[in-house]
Each structure stands twice: as C-alpha cells, then as structure tokens.
C-alpha cells in the first residue's frame, strides 16, 4: 500500500467536508464535485473505478428515502398535518400547557415515522397560525418541535437519515430499532420534554385572552382531499406493518417503502410532475455522492489506516468506548451535518469489527450521538434551521444565542440519559 492514494483521497474527502461545513457553496454541488474527483484520481492512481464507485452507493438507503419522500409528497397537499394540529388546538381549548404537550406528542410521533425535516416543515406553519390566533409567542412551540423531532427521530429505522444509513450498513431491522433504540429514546424524550417545559415556563404561563378563537378552527375544512388522505394513510399504515416483519420476509426496508410509493401512485394517480417536484433530489444526490467519496477512501486504504489507530481500542472497556462515541459524535453533529459524519464513521466501525471488537453496541452509540447532537446549536440539524428561518417572520425570532440556552441543555440531557442507559444495558450483555 502506497501513501499517495491515501493522502489524495483524504484531501478530496476532508476538503469536501470543509466546503460543505463552510456553506458558501451548496452542499450537493460540493459533494458531486468531490465524488467525480475521487473517481478521476482513483482511476489515475489505480485504486478506484466507475464500477467500484457504483458498488459503493448504498441503494438501500436511497430507495428507502425516495419511497418515503414520494409518500409524504402525496400526503402533504391533502392538509392532513394541519388537520392534526387543529385537532390538538381544539383539544387544548387554548390552554398553553395542554397545547404544548399535544403538539410535542404529535410532532414526536410524526418524526418517528417521517423524516425530521418533513415533520417540522409540515407542522411548524400551522403552529405559528395557532399561536398567533391565541396571541402567544410561537417560539417555545417551534423550538420544542424541532428539538423533539430530533430526539424522536432516533427511535426508528425510518425516523432520520443517520438511522437509515446505520440500519442499512449494519443490517439492523425496523424491529431492532424498536427494541434497542426506542426505549432509550423514550427516557431521553421525557427528559427533554420536562426540561423544555421548565425552560419555557415563563412563556407558557401566559394565559391567552382569545382562547375561544381556536375553537372556531374547523378540522374538516383543513382536509382539502379527505379521500386521498385516507388512501395514503392506508398505504402508509400497510408499509409500517411490513416494516415490522421485513426481516422475516428477507425484504429490505427500501423495497417496502418503494412498493408503498408505487401502490399509492397507482391507486391515486396524482399529477406525477407535481409529486416529483416535491422530492428532494438534492438530498439524494448528496447522499449518493458522499457514498462514492467514502468508497474512494475505503479503496485507497485510508479507512484501514484510521482503523489501525484504534488497534488498541479493544483494551478500552467497550462500554466506555461506546459512551465516548455518543459524546464525540454528538459534539460533531452539533456543529456540522450529521449525514457526512455518519457516512464516514460507518466504514470505520465496520473496520473495528474486523479487528475482533464487538461492534453491535457501537451502532446504537453512533445513532444516539448523531441524533441527539443535532439539538445543540441552531445549525445542528436541518429541522432547527427550518424553524429558526420561519420564526424570523413572526414577532419572536429565534436567535443562535437563544438556541444555545435552550437547545444545548436538551442535547446534554438527552446524551446523558442515553449514556447512562447505554452503560447500564451493555454492562451485562
């Protein structure tokens, strides 16, 4: 093994990461440039090829993301998410604490089944509507929705992109997440929820003078296409049932999601161009390009060298090692996008497995760190950025400093709870 491929592939990969984090050039553009550079350099030096690059792309991840995106793209225009939020507003009768609890629970459940970004994009606008009608600040609700969707997303295979990546790479099933991740997430969620309720207690104590106005919101009128909403929910429900048994049927989750998308498309026959316009192709391109780049790192021998650095890692207690992974990944995810971190760490963890280490707990440590870390700063996750951007148009814009005061405690508490439970669980396994 010569050093030149290692150096060049590392320069391309880390150079791209720096440009992505610098955010002056769109991340998908950086990623595709990095990917073609990696293939070009790899071919010239003989460590990488087009075939190897295509083989490095995890189509299972892309398929699962695409399938879920198609379903959401069809569900969104039906007004179903507004419907849920309006039901919550009416059930709260304008009481802030009750509204806070209901919106938190709805957001969390949605974030477990859908991508966090999607969840927040759909629930935040109607949250602003409800709080404006009540004459209360939207800020506690918006921040809590983003933070709890970050937390809730960790619970399931389909809840956030890092989990999709980890599940696919480690061969973890939907149920594995329900068994190993969901319980720890529930405790972390409770910690986050009560912490937020405490941090926002001043805002939430204000009594709305116009609480009757929310009773005038008509849930039936929020549903633009009740029949379509029903059809997609049936298909989505079917997909979730199949997620529970996909490993027994030896079917990858991507096939389940894409089948559901295909059935929904055939059943409803929407304008396909409208649906495809809502698919986030830039995200899929970003993922695909990152896979190609990390494939190059792998073929150049760079990852092998990184794993070599951890040769003595098996001497460290595995529990301590896992807890370290949670905190290091969380700290990284708080300041940078957790997708490239996850994609880069997956081969490293696989490499550690080849040294004889038991890596099955490490996958969960990676998932907790990547998921909970995003809460720490305003740029920690896309969901945070979305609510902050929306809040700029309201009376109480969310600032980066405020996010540190509210979000950082949530990140610390969720990581601490996850670390303690992680240590307790894997001490005896």
């Amino acid at each position: 093994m010569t050093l030149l491929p290692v150096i060049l592939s590392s320069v391309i990969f880390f150079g791209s990461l720096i440009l992505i984090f610098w955010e002056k050039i769109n991340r998908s553009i950086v990623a595709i440039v990095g990917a073609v550079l990696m293939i070009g350099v790899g071919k010239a030096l003989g460590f990488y090829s087009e075939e190897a690059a295509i083989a490095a792309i995890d189509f299972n991840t892309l398929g699962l993301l695409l399938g879920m995106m198609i379903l959401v793209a069809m569900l969104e225009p039906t007004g179903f998410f507004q419907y849920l939020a309006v039901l919550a507003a009416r059930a709260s009768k304008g009481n802030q604490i009750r509204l806070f609890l209901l919106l938190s629970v709805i957001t969390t459940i949605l974030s477990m089944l859908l991508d966090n970004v999607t969840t927040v994009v759909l629930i935040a606008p109607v949250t602003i509507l409800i709080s404006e009608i009540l004459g209360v600040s939207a800020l506690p609700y918006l921040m809590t929705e983003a933070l709890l969707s970050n937390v809730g997303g960790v619970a399931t295979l389909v809840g956030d992109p890092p989990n999709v990546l980890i599940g696919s790479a480690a061969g973890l099933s939907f149920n594995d997440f329900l068994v190993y991740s969901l319980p720890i997430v529930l405790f972390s969620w409770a910690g986050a929820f009560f912490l937020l309720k405490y941090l926002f207690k001043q805002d939430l104590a204000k009594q709305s003078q116009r609480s009757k106005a929310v009773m005038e919101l008509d849930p039936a009128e929020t549903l633009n296409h009740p029949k379509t909403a029903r059809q997609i929910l049936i298909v989505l429900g079917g997909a979730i049932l199949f997620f529970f048994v996909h490993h027994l049927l030896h079917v990858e989750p991507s096939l389940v999601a894409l089948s559901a998308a295909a059935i929904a498309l055939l059943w409803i026959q929407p304008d396909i161009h409208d649906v495809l316009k809502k698919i986030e192709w830039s995200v899929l391109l970003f993922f695909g390009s990152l896979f190609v780049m990390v494939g190059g790192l792998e073929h150049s021998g760079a990852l092998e060298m990184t794993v070599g650095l951890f040769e003595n890692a098996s001497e460290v207690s595995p529990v301590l090692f896992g807890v370290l992974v949670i905190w290091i990944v969380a700290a990284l995810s708080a300041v940078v996008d957790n997708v490239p971190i996850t994609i880069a760490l997956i081969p490293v963890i696989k490499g550690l497995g080849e040294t004889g280490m038991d890596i099955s707990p490490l996958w969960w440590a990676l998932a907790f760190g990547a998921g909970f870390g995003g809460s720490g700063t305003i740029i920690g996750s896309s969901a945070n950025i979305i609510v902050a951007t929306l809040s700029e148009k309201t009376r109480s814009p969310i600032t980066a400093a405020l996010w540190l005061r509210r979000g950082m405690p949530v990140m610390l508490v969720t990581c601490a709870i996850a670390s303690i439970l992680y240590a307790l669980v894997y001490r005896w396994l």
Partner: protein
Amino acid sequence: MTVKTCMKRDVISIHADTTIREAMTLFVKRHIGSLPVVDDHNVPVGVIGLRDLLKLEMPAFVDFVADVDFVHDFGAVEDMRPSAETLKKQVKSIMRPVFTVKEDCGLLRAYSLMLQQNMHDIPVVAKDGKMAGIASRVDVGVAILSTWFKAEA
C-alpha cells in the same frame, strides 16, 4: 392613445423622510391605494402601497398556510396594532423601488406593465423625470375600452 390622456394630474405624494404615521393619515384621508414618494424636485424615488402598510401587522401564518379558509376567527391577530416605534419610522424604511412610465407610453403597454409588476397604480413622469400624473388600472383599462367604442363609431 397614450397614458397622458387618462392619467390623474393631481398627484398625492409624500417625502421619504416623513413618518409612517403621516403616510397612513394620507391614505385614510384621501382614500388612496398607493402613494408615490418624491424628492425635493418632485422626482419619484419610491412608492408605498396600502399592502406595505397592512403588511406591518399581517399575521405571519398568512404567508405560510396556503389556504386559511378553515380559520374562522383570527383571534388575537385582529387586535394587533403597529407599535408607536414603527409609526415613528420614516417612510423610506418601508418604501419599494418605483416603476414609472413616460407620458407618451401607450395604453396597452402601461396596462401590461401594471399586470406584470403587480401594480394597481402607475406613476407617470414627464420628459425631465418629474412626476406628471398617476393612472390606476381602472383609468387605463376604461380608456382602452373607450378606444374600442370609438373605433366602432
């Protein structure tokens, strides 16, 4: 036919350094939809419309929720009033760039520009760039129709 034939010559305008409160008073008193902002030489430098003022207290959700039909009671939003600080700000803080036509501009051209620029009134300037008049969509539209009648006769 040019826009000169249908424009109103008595233009109500305002200076950029007057307050938003004064501008609002003008809108109410003169029952107008848009107000050209001019400099000391009566040259248009900007415009404020009724919607720019209403936007000051428009709820944010109207921008985010595609169809607000299901909201029957706007609740607390109905009681919102611009703060005293907002009213004290100068007109130039909220004015938009102005789009004008010359007096010899054709009627159809004027009307098309208003449609494309989403304007309800279009300020008309003389050759020296000074404000000469203002024409509304109704002024221009009706003038176009009347030319059709003349053609018939």
